[in-house]
């Protein structure tokens, strides 16, 4: 891929519009899904099936006053929402939508995504600190302890996959899973994963961690509205709040992309390569897989009530971390043997 200026600008425009469109329309999907799971129609006033709701919401948010409460740390207060949106945007640079469609294949792509995910946790801390609000502070402390607790099993599980494929490049990780769904990393009985029977469990661990990483229900302790008003974004109005919201949904897409790339074969077609029909082609399969994962995210959110903070930390420190550590050792041993 030649790096002419035109290509760069085009890539940036496509990336930003993909993120923006996803962030806007995932809100619609979320509300529609919530409605259907609860036997309601969901949004349906603006446009057919309420499809014009996101632009209308966007206009509403943008025309509202951006209120800065008295006594806040102004610079930090203003930086936090940008810090929430921008790492999610950056992470899309290295995500391969197909063999050729990737903005910039970085050799340490996995590492980069985790680095920027950690920056997302930072934005919550900064928002809580800058707001000068007890509830925001409590919420951000919770959110950060949660992020730290869940990043560990997430990374350990990812190291397992990286050991299997021998590369930190997301494109290479997918390359080792091509050629039919039985080659995907989630299946235990194949030579490349060393016949490790715990592979489906490590997929589950990764999935649970990516739900927790994105601060979504049932792990949305950070914005527990029954106790903390709205958590870290209590004091944010207008587009400040809008950016937090878009950042959250962009993070959901990143989480789904990561799950699909590491365990579900990325852009690989489940039955070999059908190639000819657009929908069965690489990008189509990748998008189909990530939206299936996102559907499960929404499904989980509208099924389970919020956990408690100690239940959340217990799950991570008592179950996910020991199991993923054991799995890491087991995979390393099995890869040596086979």
């Amino acid at each position, binding site marked *: 891929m030649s790096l002419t200026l035109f290509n760069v600008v085009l890539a940036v425009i496509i990336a930003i519009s993909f993120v923006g469109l996803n962030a806007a329309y995932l809100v619609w999907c979320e509300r529609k899904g919530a409605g259907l799971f*609860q036997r309601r*129609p969901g949004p349906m006033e603006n446009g057919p099936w309420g499809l014009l709701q996101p632009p209308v919401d966007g206009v509403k948010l943008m025309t509202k006053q951006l209120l800065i409460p008295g006594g806040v740390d102004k610079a930090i207060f203003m930086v936090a929402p940008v810090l929430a949106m921008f790492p999610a945007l950056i992470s899309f640079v290295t995500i391969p939508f197909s063999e050729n469609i990737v903005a910039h294949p970085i050799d340490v792509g996995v590492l980069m995504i985790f680095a920027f995910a950690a920056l997302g946790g930072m934005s919550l801390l900064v928002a809580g600190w800058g707001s000068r609000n007890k509830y925001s502070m409590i919420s951000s402390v919770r959110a950060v302890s949660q992020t730290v607790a869940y990043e560990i099993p997430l990374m350990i599980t990812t190291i397992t996959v990286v050991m299997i494929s021998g590369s930190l490049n997301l494109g290479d990780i997918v390359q080792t899973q091509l050629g039919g769904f039985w080659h995907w990393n989630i299946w235990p009985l194949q030579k490349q994963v060393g016949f490790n029977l715990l592979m489906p469990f490590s997929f589950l661990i990764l999935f649970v961690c990516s739900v927790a990483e994105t601060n979504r229900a049932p792990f949305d302790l950070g914005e527990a509205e029954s106790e903390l008003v709205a958590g870290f974004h209590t004091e944010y109005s207008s587009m400040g709040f809008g950016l937090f919201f878009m950042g959250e949904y962009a993070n959901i897409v990143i989480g789904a992309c990561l799950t699909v790339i590491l365990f579900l074969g990325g852009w690989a077609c489940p039955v070999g390569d059908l190639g000819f029909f657009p929908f069965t082609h690489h990008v189509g399969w990748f998008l189909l897989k990530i939206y299936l994962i996102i559907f499960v995210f929404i499904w989980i959110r*509208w099924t389970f009530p919020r956990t408690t903070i100690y239940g959340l930390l217990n799950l991570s420190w008592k179950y996910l971390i020991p199991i993923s550590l054991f799995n890491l050792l087991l995979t390393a041993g099995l890869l040596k043997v086979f």
Partner: protein
Amino acid sequence: MGGYFTELFTGAKSLLDGMWVTLKEFPRRPVTLNYPHESVKMYPRFRGHIELIGNQEGKSNCIVCSMCQRACPSGCISLAGVKPEGEKKKVLTKYILDFTTCSLCGSCVESCNFNALRFSNEYNLASTRKEDFIMDLLKRLEEQNQ
């Protein structure tokens, strides 16, 4: 240590059970009503404010005996009538219900011996002006006849 794994598996199973419950509801039709566009049909025995019963000619059965007025504990009914030349019964000319003080006790409906009063099915009553609840029931009967 035994409890560790049983807790893990029973927990996971109960989560899956919960997800199966919501998934079954997902494809079904909504049970809610799209309120401003459609509303519930009120049951025939619903006790809304009172209204006059029209006979076959669309006139009221009322003979202005004033029993309802006397039965009303809050004094919210006021009515008047005239006796036309050569008729035996009085004819109703005015029937005003002050719904702001009515408690829907139904004493007026019970006291009516001429089948002239009943409860309406009206339940969508909302206004910012007090005068909207001082109702001319004779006018309402005329509107119903049209």
